[in-house]
């Protein structure tokens, strides 16, 4: 039996991974993720490391470029107090085969299915989303989650190599 009008169906679902950076939650399409791994050491690059671009990391034997998504998203608020055991920093690698970007997150909530009805019923102004890189706000398990616009995000990550790249420090 077809779903009733307005009801959610598996066909229109989008899989996203929900993660936290400081005190804000974000979602990004799962298909964009290349890897999620434990937080690992970043090596700065003289003359290239900046507030947005942090350096290189070793992800399974490959050197990946590592960025600070918190700074790219202009998140200035400190992280909320998280109960011990839940605050597990991870490094995620997103992008495609040719261009990959690694960045640390403070917590991975998990993989969630977002249905069209959910995507369309929520607010969408950048101010409400909390970042210019979000397309709208989703509600996931009672949390307000900014649904990141992948094109804008990848473009911002790539652009952060060319700007503010004059070695302003670790």
């Amino acid at each position, binding site marked *: 039996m077809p779903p009733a009008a307005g009801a959610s169906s598996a066909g229109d679902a989008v899989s996203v991974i929900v993660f936290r950076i400081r005190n804000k939650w974000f979602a990004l399409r799962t298909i964009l993720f290349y890897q999620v791994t434990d937080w690992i050491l*970043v*090596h700065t*690059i*003289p*003359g*290239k490391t900046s507030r947005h671009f942090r350096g290189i990391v*070793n992800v399974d034997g490959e050197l990946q470029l590592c960025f600070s998504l918190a700074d790219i998203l202009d998140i200035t608020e400190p992280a909320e107090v998280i109960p011990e055991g839940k605050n597990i920093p991870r490094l995620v690698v997103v992008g495609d085969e040719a261009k990959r970007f690694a960045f640390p997150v403070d917590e991975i909530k998990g993989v969630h299915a977002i249905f069209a009805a959910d995507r369309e019923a929520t607010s969408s102004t950048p101010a409400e989303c909390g970042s210019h890189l979000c397309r709208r706000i989703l509600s996931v398990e009672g949390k307000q989650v900014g649904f990141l616009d992948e094109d804008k995000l990848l473009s911002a990550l790539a652009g952060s190599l060319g700007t503010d790249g004059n*070695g302003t420090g670790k």
Partner: protein
Amino acid sequence: METERENNGNTVMLGLFREELAGQARMLEAGLAEIEQGLPPERIEGLIRIVHAIKGAARLVGLPIAANLAYAMETFLSEVKRGKRRLVAHQVDQLRQANDVFRAIGTQKERDIPRWVVERESGISRISKALMQPVAEVEAPPFSESPESMIPEGGSPECAETPITEQGDVTPAAPGTTNIPDGELSVLPSEEEVSRDRFFCRDNLIELANECLNQARRIRKLNPVLQAADPFPPAPGRGILTAERDQGQAPVADSVLKFECSSEKLEKLAERLYNEILENRKDSTGLPALSCITRCLLVEIHGESYALPILQIDRVIRVSPSDIVSIEGRPFISIDGENIGLVDAGNLLQLPNLPPLTGHWPVVVMENRSSRCGLVVEAFRGEEDLVFRPLDRRLGKVDFIQAGAILGDGSPTLVLDMDDLFHAIELL
């Protein structure tokens, strides 16, 4: 027997080097022609990458003179890109002369290349020296103001292929020939002889292919019966090569795995790699791009690890403040009766918020062909065999950094470019 094997291997590598070089020289030639037309700075980056690749490959095949020439070109072009140097006509000619050397190497037989280069050392070094001439000593009108001035007197592209004399004069070359240093003329390869589709020299892949081939030969020598076996006998020999991670082999930390393998399989893999090198298909075998292992000294600079190839290090010492003398405001130490200048590595790399050095300074005494200098670091961390990995292309050229690498504990590190360091220190 061992020497014969090494010679065979080196000849194979020289052959691959020559093949790559021919294509790279052609791209450089096209790039230099574009420079005359006003090449935008971002395009110069491509030329820098080409000469950087030539530099690495020349070192790998044991041609330091050619490597120095490539380094001089790289430094020159980097300064142009950064706006530190303005181009004038005779400097483009110098770049062309340097490229003529590469083109000429590309026409030699593999086994003749080392002798050919050594015989022309003085002329090649003269070109390198001219390119490394400090910016302040070069009288140069702004490139953007007078692109026509890029064309030397006579106006034709052929006239641009000119040798430089001790005095910096230029003399036109005969059409169809190139002026090789020391006055020898060589016929240029024809259009058909010059491959059009060569790109960057993946010296590490060459090394891997060469290793495969050498291993295959070794197995054959150890197992003569194999030579008559048809077509794939059981694997009685042991070969060492890098595992293909995507074909059922267990993934390992550094992508290097030892396993038994028949000589035929090694030969086939070598052939496949050679073909890939020639066809410029990157990583399609699933093999990691790098397998060249270099013994390195690990040091700490600004709390992070950096690697320096052992071959270019004279010694490591700890210097007490009482051993340091100041000459014209710069610190020196005396080693073997020679004053060695000291340079702080953190300052050289322009790292921010450096802590003050206290106690005995750890110093790496580096040497090149003509001089020594001391690089002051924060600590010595030991030695390690490292596989050099190219940094992401999106970073462009990183000053003073030759490559990246992964240490035994899995942490990333950066390999310092000793030539870059020496050049910067000499300018100081």
